[in-house]
């Protein structure tokens, strides 16, 4: 279980100190899909960096199974906003990068990576370079790169924001299904309300800076599948959307 205990974060510029996150406490259950929604500049991404151990909180602490996170942790993997695939590496080379940082990839590692790529429809692109793939396929490759290090928790930092709308819907669907199959705890940061509701078990709305949790919604949709596309059609969807929309207080 991932826990945020009264986490606060200030960052410093020569002009002064800015309180980005005032106080956030959250419990995230294993296997849960949680979305964090908030106005732009509210410190959503900062919160992810704190969970991922890329930043240390100014106050409070982040723990996994009661162990405090003090730096990048092998149990957590991060999927960035743009795919950040390295153009000079093949898709397989890109997928293996996370393992390479830890150790020399073994044949077993390669076999597993190839199996993942094949499982999720990139089998024939193993030796291709990122610029030979479509935006959606690249994002899928980026997700597989994240899965290849076999983390418990995935941090998704607006992973679809660089895609055009149609690709975005399809890729979000794919990603959600893959995560469902791989049984990972996931935290998605987004400013897209529909995306948040359609993908998650729970939606957390952050306030403007200095951020606190404004509200929390357990999303219960009468949809037959976990597919975000199907969930968007659920009758309750609009209800959640309107409530969160009002909560966000967009001017």
């Amino acid at each position: 279980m991932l826990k945020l205990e009264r986490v606060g974060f200030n960052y410093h510029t020569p002009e002064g100190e800015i309180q980005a996150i005032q106080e956030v406490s959250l419990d995230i259950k294993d296997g849960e899909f949680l979305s964090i929604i908030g106005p732009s500049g509210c410190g959503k991404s900062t919160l992810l960096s704190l969970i991922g151990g890329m930043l240390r909180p100014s106050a409070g602490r982040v723990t996994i199974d009661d162990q405090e996170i003090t730096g990048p942790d092998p149990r957590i993997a991060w999927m960035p906003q743009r795919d950040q695939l390295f153009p000079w590496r093949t898709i397989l080379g890109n997928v293996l990068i996370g393992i390479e940082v830890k150790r020399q990839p073994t044949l077993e590692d390669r076999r597993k990576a190839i199996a993942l790529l094949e499982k999720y429809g990139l089998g024939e692109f193993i030796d291709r370079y990122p610029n030979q793939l479509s935006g959606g396929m690249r994002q899928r490759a980026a997700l597989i790169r994240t899965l290849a290090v076999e983390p418990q928790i995935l941090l998704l930092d607006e992973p679809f924001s660089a895609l055009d709308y149609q690709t975005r819907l399809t890729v979000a669907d794919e990603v959600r299904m893959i995560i469902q199959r791989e049984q990972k705890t996931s935290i998605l940061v987004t400013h897209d309300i529909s995306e948040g509701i359609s993908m998650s078990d729970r939606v957390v709305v952050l306030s403007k800076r200095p951020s606190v949790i404004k509200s929390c919604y357990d999303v219960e949709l009468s949809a037959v599948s976990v597919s975000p596309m199907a969930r968007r059609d659920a009758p309750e969807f609009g209800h959640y959307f309107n409530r969160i929309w009002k909560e966000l207080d967009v001017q």
Partner: protein
Amino acid sequence: MNAQKKISPGHQRYLDNIKKTEKKKRLWQISLLLAFLILWELAGQMRWIDPFIMSQPSRVWNSLANLVREGSLGLHIAVTTSETLIGFALATIIGLAAAIALWWFPLAAKILDPYLVVLNALPKIALGPILIVWAGAGPKAIIAVTVLVTVVVTIINLYNGFIQTDEGKIHLLRSFGASRSQIFLKVVMPANVPNLISALKINIGLAWVGVIVGEFLVSRAGLGYLIVYGGQVFKLDLVMASIFILCLLTALMYYAVVYLEEITMKIWHS
């Protein structure tokens, strides 16, 4: 795969047009050179100019033939070329090492910044006489001048490339727990290969400047030596012949680097 398709008349016209422009360009390039040489030769023959001072193609040709007959042309070319290549290689290696060090120690980079700026602005040739005293009047001094002329620009260009490496890619590696050396080897260096090639392109030009200036200052052989010597004894034909050879050599080396660039770009897919 699209190239296998039948070509439409419109596309054919487009392709023909490209070919035609290419042909026209080549024709003009060659004609310009020929016209210049013929006019120069003619001007000398007709005494519109004084060939003793202005030289002329036929005299340059004779001068070249002389050098070949004496058997010294090869020596001069070898001396200058080897000095250039050694200076170029040294400057690139030292520059790369220094740029890596600056990237590795950001505080050092901040501290050294004004010194680099001044060194970059300084005409390095001004240090020539000092180098001659230090390195002795010989090829060592010439190579030292070459390195000095080339290395500062290399450091600055490479370092700027390093610090402009995509933050997102570095962040990604850090999230996997990468060390600083892993970040350098797996992101910064590979991302900067195109940058390194463009540094090589600039370096090759600067290395020639360094070598020729170095040879002007101290030398007993080399194309720079021939130019200075020819100038001193008023053998302008010899000067022109040396410059002609120099043109060929520099073009050759430049295109060698461009070729290298094409190959790496293919591998690099960027």
